[in-house]
């Protein structure tokens, strides 16, 4: 018997707070275009000649306000990096194992993270050309792109 640890206990708790996040002027516009028109837009810094996806209203490189410089990018792109997520957590959008990749869309300069499906894990590679598969039901987040699939 462990006298020191007997009659001591833990209580169960939970951090849970319903919350609302303003999606921002720039974020709202990006997500509305994605939701309603299935179009992906980026914001371009003309000084740095760079198209940012996801969009942001200020270029962090030069500080320029770029919130009106919308350019449409393609729904096709290239995988620049990936991992295979094999552990399970409640915040994951699909059942593990799944491929989480960085995808540079044609017309954009910054890759962004998304799920790749429709390819066997062992065949996955950097440089893979992919195409967005849009979601049937909107969540007004980046998951309005359901996933990316091998192109062609």
């Amino acid at each position, binding site marked *: 018997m462990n006298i*020191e*640890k007997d009659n*001591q206990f*833990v209580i169960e*708790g939970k*951090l849970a707070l319903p919350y609302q*996040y303003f*999606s921002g002027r720039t*974020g709202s516009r990006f*997500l509305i275009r994605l939701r309603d028109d299935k179009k992906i837009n980026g914001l371009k810094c003309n000084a740095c000649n760079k198209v*940012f*996806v*996801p969009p942001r209203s200020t270029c*962090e490189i030069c500080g320029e306000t770029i919130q009106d410089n919308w350019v449409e990018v393609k729904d096709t792109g290239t995988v*620049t*990096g*990936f*991992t*295979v*997520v*094999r*552990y399970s*957590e*409640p*915040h*994951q*959008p*699909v059942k593990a194992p799944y491929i*989480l990749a*960085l995808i*540079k869309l044609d017309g954009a300069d*910054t*890759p*962004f*993270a*998304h*799920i790749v499906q429709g390819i066997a894990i062992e065949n996955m590679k*950097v440089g893979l050309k992919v195409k967005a598969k849009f979601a049937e039901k909107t*969540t007004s*987040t*980046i*998951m309005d792109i359901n996933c990316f699939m091998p192109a062609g």
Partner: protein
Amino acid sequence: MARKVGICAIAQTTYEKNKWGARFQEMALEVLESIQQQTGVDFSETGITMSISVSDDVFDARTISDNAMTDVLGAHLGCEEKIAQEGIQALYYGLAAIQSGHEDVVLIVGHCKESQGKSRNMVTHLAFDPFFTRPVGLDFCAAAGLQAQAYAMKSGIGDEELARIVVRSSENAVKNPMLPEAKKLTMKEVMASPMIADPIRALHAYPVSDGAVGMLLVAEDRVKEFTDTPVWIKGVGNCMDSFFMGDRNLASNFALKKAAQIAYKRAGIDNPGKAFDIIEVSDQYAYQQPMWMEGLGIIDDGKGNEWIKKDGPQKNNVNISGGTLAGSPLLLGGLVRAAEAAIQLKGEAGDRQVANAKTALAHGVMGPAGQFHSIAVLERG
């Protein structure tokens, strides 16, 4: 010139997977009492006049988790600051407070119980934005997988080299009395552990850890009141990279190189490859040890794999403590690295002591895939 700042005492609890029978206040008290016993310091006007706590509200599951510790920190009667960032930033704050002349004696105490939450990944998931990166399920482990893949492509590092790093860490960890749960791992065990985020295996990741760490920082002119063997903080530097991972080159070490540049300049280090007797880097995942060594400019860019093959970690005295890989909470990684480096410089490292250690580097990292790096250069007094 600004007056120097000395680390006069270092204290740690053990680091364990689940210290369920200790409240975080109790862990912090253990650290404070050790520092008081080592130095005789108190909270009078000539004692600690500023306390800096390191804590995280989500890990603690209560907001302003520092105000639950006023009795421990003595802060209800004095100045209190909080770091909700990599713990090594407490050295930065303390250094600034003393060099500016505002304070003479500063207490630092960091605590974290990663085990309290159901999942560490669920905590780090909250570091992402709710529109673009949380929905795809990102957390620090998945982000590390993306970076590990990028670094493997750049350096050629493979499963065997990564396993070597973990095995060496486990061998060092069993000599560290702060890690009572450490046990020696074999190459076979590491290479047979399941993949979690390719190419990261389960045993390439640091264990869930609970513990606390603290230091007493004192102005040069008053150091003698508290110790005969101070460790001087010679230079600090940090750098934050872009938020979105796609905006960064994940294998480039951009932020770490900048942080190191600043710290080296302040510390007067010209040749980092030869400057350090002790190096403690925050290797939350095995691939990070050689990668951060490249970023620190201690080994050449892209040469981390070769360095591992040639037994570089042993030759450079990297993570003699076992490193973050052997177990220290996310939040405290860099502060624990600084503590271990300072213990070596004070000559109090027992079985793991490196002879005649004079100059050390301690490194901390926070954010997904090494977004933020912070470095301290330390020197024996």
